[in-house]
């Protein structure tokens, strides 16, 4: 008997799929006595086995026949009885076809032009702290290009002793460093300022990714070119794509830990992430980590570029815009379980999520299961790095009651991730950017998890 013929097999949860027919019936008509009875009858023999021996029982639902065990074990599977594929079938390896659901996705209705849009990382399915390069969120202002690295140049000009041209070869000869940092778009969670707007963590928080970046420190390049650090208080970074995106970086930040990067997770940057060269400004909103970096200019005043004067400005209740808001403040979110996920049974689960801060390391993450009334510290998973994602976990025995799950991160400066209410008190609801509020997920009686905001 093949797996396909096994439709209707009963086995222990939670490793299973929900039968859509049953869901339909239950959904439309509820669990009346007939349906309850059917389930109970089907389960009887299985339950008997479980009760008497502690072993799992298997019943063929149609034939009502007790099986000797799990067909996945008792029957020989195709992958056991046939010759597997040779090496280099895929010269560049790809994820299993069973992982097809996990992709970067656009948020429907958010933007009207896909070349000036965002795709969100599927945080709901990721582990650890590193985002696979192919799932790193995208934000392009005028589409992405695949730039010929042999024709790519970096120019450093302005208040420098020697205006300099670097080729990729020049840059890659310099002493490099590899560091793990997050990149988060300033507009991450921006849709949620006023109310709940999107269903899952992919869309509420999916504009953050974390990678190991390899490159040369910007301070090294500024040294080589002889930057005038007395007058030159700002650096303009410019992209080589059609948008020629430009952002001003304060010199103190530039000299601190900014990197000119070509490597990402052990290989070259992906084109969507700035191949062959990008800036990485750790802890600062992603737009400053200029992709396809072609020029750096040292200057004595901020540049008020399009993305500092029309966009990436935060509207306050008094009608003023905050300009040059950059730091991504301490923030966290539970990624599993999270909005749009379905729990199938009560019992043990591992609550897991990510925390990060643009001001340094994560010190602590607390989790509440009752909507913020009571909190307990979660387990932080190392390594805990500067301006990087930190994974946290907590044991959870779900008793089947309504729960509201929240996480609250605290960074090494002592800053505590605020509630939505606190943020709104200061910034109102129209600021779009820099929403680092505590996220709430409602786990309902039916096991469905959804996005909510609490008072």
């Amino acid at each position, binding site marked *: 008997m093949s797996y*396909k013929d096994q439709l*209707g097999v009963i086995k222990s949860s939670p490793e299973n*799929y*929900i039968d859509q027919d049953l869901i339909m019936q239950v959904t439309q008509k509820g*669990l009346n006595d007939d349906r309850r009875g059917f389930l109970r009858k089907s389960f009887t023999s*299985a339950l008997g086995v479980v009760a008497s021996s502690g072993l799992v029982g298997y019943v063929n*639902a149609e034939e009502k026949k007790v099986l000797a065990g799990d067909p996945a074990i008792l029957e020989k599977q195709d992958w056991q009885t046939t010759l597997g594929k040779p090496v280099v079938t895929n010269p560049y390896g790809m994820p299993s076809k069973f992982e097809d*659901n996990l992709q970067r996705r656009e948020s429907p209705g958010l933007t009207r032009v896909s070349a000036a849009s965002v795709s969100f990382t599927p945080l*709901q*399915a990721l582990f650890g702290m590193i985002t696979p390069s192919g799932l790193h969120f995208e934000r392009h202002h*005028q589409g992405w290009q695949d730039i010929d690295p042999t024709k790519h140049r970096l*120019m450093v*000009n302005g208040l420098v002793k*020697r205006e*300099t*041209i670097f080729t990729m070869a020049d840059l890659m000869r310099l002493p490099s460093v590899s560091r793990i940092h997050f990149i988060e778009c300033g507009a991450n969670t921006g849709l949620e300022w006023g109310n709940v707007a*999107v269903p*899952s963590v992919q869309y509420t928080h999916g504009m953050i990714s974390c990678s190991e970046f390899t490159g040369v420190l910007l301070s090294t390049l500024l040294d*080589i*070119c002889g930057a*005038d650090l007395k007058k030159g208080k700002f650096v303009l970074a410019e992209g080589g794509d*059609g*948008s020629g995106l430009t952002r001003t970086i*304060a010199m103190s*930040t530039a000299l601190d830990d900014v990197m000119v990067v070509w490597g990402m997770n052990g290989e070259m940057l992906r084109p969507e992430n700035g191949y062959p060269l990008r800036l990485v400004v750790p*802890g600062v909103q992603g737009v400053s980590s200029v992709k396809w970096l*072609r*020029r750096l*200019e040292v200057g004595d005043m901020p*540049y008020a570029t399009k993305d500092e*004067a029309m966009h990436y400005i935060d*509207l306050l209740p008094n*009608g003023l*815009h905050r*300009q040059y808001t*950059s*730091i991504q*403040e301490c923030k966290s979110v539970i990624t*599993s379980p999270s909005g*749009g996920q*379905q729990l199938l*049974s009560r019992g043990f*689960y591992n609550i897991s999520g990510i925390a990060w801060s643009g001001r340094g390391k994560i010190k602590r993450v*607390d989790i509440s299961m009752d*909507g913020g*009334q009571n*909190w307990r510290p979660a387990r932080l998973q190392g390594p805990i790095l500067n301006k990087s994602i930190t994974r946290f976990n907590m044991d959870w025995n779900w008793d089947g009651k309504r729960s509201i799950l929240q996480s*609250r991160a605290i960074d090494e400066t002592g800053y*505590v991730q*605020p509630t939505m209410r606190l943020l709104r008190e200061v910034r109102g609801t129209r600021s779009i950017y820099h929403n680092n509020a505590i996220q709430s997920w*409602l786990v309902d*009686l*039916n*096991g469905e998890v*959804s*996005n*909510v*905001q*609490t*008072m």
Partner: protein
Amino acid sequence: MSRRCKHQKITIFSIGIYLIFSSWVLAQDQLHTRYSNIGRQATQAEVAAWDIDVRPDFKGLPKGSGSVAQGQDIWEAKCASCHGVFGESNEVFTPIIGGTTLEDIKRGRVNALIDRKHPQRTTFMKLATLSTAFDYIYRAMPWNAPRTLSVDETYSTLAYLLHLTEMVPAEFVLNEVNMMQLQNKMPNRDGMTTDHGLWQVSGKADVRAVACMKNCIKEVKIESSLPDYARNSHHNLAQQNRIFGPYLGVDTTRPPLLELPNNTGLIKVVVKEVQRTLPTDDVRQGGTLFKKNNCAACHGMNHKILGPSVVEISKKYQGKTEALATLTKKVKNGGAGVWGVVPMPANPQLADSDIKIILEWMINPQ
């Protein structure tokens, strides 16, 4: 060893000089020795070619001029298809023009940002620095052919926008000199603040939360959740989650379950083959090219945006193979008049072979 000592001495000596005279020249020479033969001096022409930014003090603004009338011609030919004839369109991008008043121009603050009476923030409601507008238009416009406007064309285009904002009269000619005076007429010129702690890592946070641990709030109330009608707004979440593991995706094409599926501890399950229904390569390629070349900016799948929808086009041209040549030309060179007043922009960057694949897909989308 002696060599090393000598080197150290030189270093110490240099640092001394550096501290006393704050001389970055010496430090520079030293570094050159350290990273020898890396990079080369940029030529003047190279710097001029790339250094096109214009700062708020108008440093970098090139000499040139352009009139409102010339700007209107350029606008209608190259800009209106996305931004609307009067920069008012909200179809493809958010509006550029609107929401500002003569009173705002006098005052330097846009009142609509305070009284919230204008439905949406337009570019000129937000923008405080005129330099930004010139920089951006010259740098990145038009949308599908960035950096193809000349300096004079950029002045003209900006002159037209300033006219629409009621900052200059219809006969105005904008140039690098009067630009600076016009900065004082920007409707929201005093609308920005840098009085916040979010620029530098050392900045002071504006919100101070406390990490309370026990009995922090009396009663938890849900104040916002996704309305029922939006349940499937981001498509079926069952297909956006792993097909196994502790949590499955909710099937958002159906109403919520009435009960936890597995209250008893056991559950009826159905093992399904993973459905992989991918379109054929040619069809997929057409759809991909359509998206990649931003056709979707103006042509929605089912709805009219600026141009007709794919479905409308398909209806009109299905079975008419002779139309392909005409349509190819139209995609390549642009055109107007068939579907409405908004002209179809030219796409000279597209190869004929790609246009063919896109058109075949548009006429027979699957």
